[in-house]
């Protein structure tokens, strides 16, 4: 038996992994550890303290967390609901060609987040935007000043832009995993369409839906460029706050920024963790 198969995958060759592990350590793991340490240490006394976290209990920071969670949760739920629906419409489309085009389109648009997207939304929904004009001219309705693109609602619309296709891409394989035979079995056992979805379809889809909510939540929570371009100082978000601290625009103790960052990591970690668990469950069911 060749030696490479005998040793079950752990052997002295692990040395070869060192460059990669070193890279991860240097640019990823050590900095994050420093971050965690910095958030629980008092700079002057060098003693452990939770003071920095307690300092987060200030309207400015609480607001930013609230807003970030609100916008992430909102766009995640809207994204999952509508994305699932759109995904089903695409899944049941008879033409393979059209399906492929729509999938490619989703693939591209979900990566469009950032400044160009924010700017594009200003073009359509800004004070002189296309849609603003449209409402003005055809319905004699003035969107502004009750609505503004440079606000929470405006940013929500921009976030939904890249959340929807992400959900579409996520849910399509889940629909494909619903076997035709399950549907037919259920029918032969007397179930109508509603009963099939209620007892089998939706439960089987549920892990993917949960995966969708958590992934979209994490996606929105960590977004920076779109928010920076569109709302900057007008809306307080966690990522923006941390950004200010790095740029040194706020002459405050950086430890607060680190505390915020650690809390963000915990939130993100939970989301991604649930996402992974849900994905594994979804995959297991689609294989059976």
């Amino acid at each position, binding site marked *: 038996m060749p030696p490479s198969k005998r040793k079950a995958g752990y052997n002295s060759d692990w040395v070869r992994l060192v460059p990669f592990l070193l890279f991860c350590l240097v640019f990823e793991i050590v900095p994050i550890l420093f971050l965690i340490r910095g958030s629980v240490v008092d700079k002057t006394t060098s003693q452990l303290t939770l003071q920095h976290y307690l300092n987060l209990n200030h309207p400015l920071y609480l607001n930013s967390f609230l807003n970030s969670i609100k916008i992430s949760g909102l766009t995640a739920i809207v994204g999952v609901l509508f994305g699932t629906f759109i995904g089903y419409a695409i899944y049941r489309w008879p033409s393979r060609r059209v399906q492929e085009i729509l999938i490619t389109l989703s693939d591209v648009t979900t990566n469009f987040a950032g400044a160009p997207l924010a700017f594009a939304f200003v073009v359509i929904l800004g004070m002189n935007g296309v849609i603003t004009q449209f409402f003005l001219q055809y319905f004699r309705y003035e969107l502004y000043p009750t609505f503004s693109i440079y606000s929470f609602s405006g940013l929500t619309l921009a976030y939904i832009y890249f959340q929807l296709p992400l959900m579409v891409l996520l849910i399509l394989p889940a629909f494909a995993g619903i*076997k035709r*035979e*399950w549907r*037919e*079995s*259920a*029918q*032969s*056992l*007397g*179930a*109508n369409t509603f*009963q099939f979805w209620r*007892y*089998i379809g939706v*439960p*089987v889809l549920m892990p993917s839906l949960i995966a969708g909510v958590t992934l979209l939540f994490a996606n929105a929570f960590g977004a920076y460029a779109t928010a920076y371009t569109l709302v900057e100082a007008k809306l307080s978000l966690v990522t923006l706050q941390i950004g200010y601290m790095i740029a040194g625009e706020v002459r405050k103790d950086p430890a607060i920024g680190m505390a915020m960052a650690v809390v963000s990591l915990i939130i993100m970690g939970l989301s991604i963790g649930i996402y992974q668990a849900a994905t594994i469950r979804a995959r*297991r*069911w689609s*294989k*059976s």
Partner: protein
Amino acid sequence: MAYLDLKNVTKVYSGVDVVHNFNLEIDKGSLVSFLGPSGCGKTTTLRMIAGFTKLDEGTIRLDGEDITTVSPNRRDIGMVFQAYALFPNMTVRGNVAFGLLMKKMPKREIDQRVDQVLEMVRLQDAAERFPHQLSGGQQQRIALARALAVLPRVLLLDEPLSALDAEVRVVLRGEIRRIQSELAITTVYVTHDQEEALSISDKVVVMNRGVIEQIGTPEEIYRTPQSHFVATFIGTANQFLGKVSGIDTVIGDHFNLLVDGMKGFVDGKQVVVLVRPETIHVESEQPKHDGWNSIPGEVETITFHGAVTRLGVNLHGQRVVADITVAHTKPISLNQKIWLLFPPDACQVMAVDERS
């Protein structure tokens, strides 16, 4: 009238008749197999009975009721698929109870029925497990239990054993037959495996390219095939070409064959005479049987199949197959000159079929 009655059932895909004028009467409580090669239309016909595929022409009646246009969830049929199709999000109990849940049976009765049915398939202990924790054979037994739990009027099985190992297949097909006859449930069984069909069916429907070639008991299908296709599809058959002469002789290129009274063949007509390998006797010296066909030839191949040894014999350039058992007296060797003997009633004569 028959319990399940298909009349002139036809299905067309892209201008081609995948099922053409299918007529069949199935008696209550019997097990009928649809047997044929891939693409012969057997699964399509089954799915039309189930209601998943719409008929283009014809009618289907079940217990006197016309179900041609009834939707599948109202036909009261049970279906077992090749791919088991157990619902992954439910336990075995949940799966088996599903049809009863749809019928809105009270919970206690549901539990009782589920236990009964699980006992029938001998998987009482698996009730709280999930499908992915079971083996293929176990999953298929649960699928069967699920289909039977509602006591359907008809049980339909679409190649239920194809995905399983050979040993499991043999055991399970016996189980299916046992349960089916115990419950006396009218059953249609689709398969491409002859052995399966012949071993468990009351009647076999042999199909080819969308039409029925023959309907009969397994014995009838095997012993008296009505068409060239059936004769060559079922088991192995040696084919001798020749011309009809009188009522008992077929004249071939190198030898003549004595056959049992032929009817309906004109003198000079081109026919093929079919002879099954197991009906051929082998002698190492010129035999003296009168009234039997005896033809000399040379042994080209000897293949040991366990219970039977298959000889490939060269008869004037044609390869003929003969099966001999261990009971055969003298050992045969390669290139040995032997005589093949078979009686006239082992010969089946039929017109040469251009289709197959």
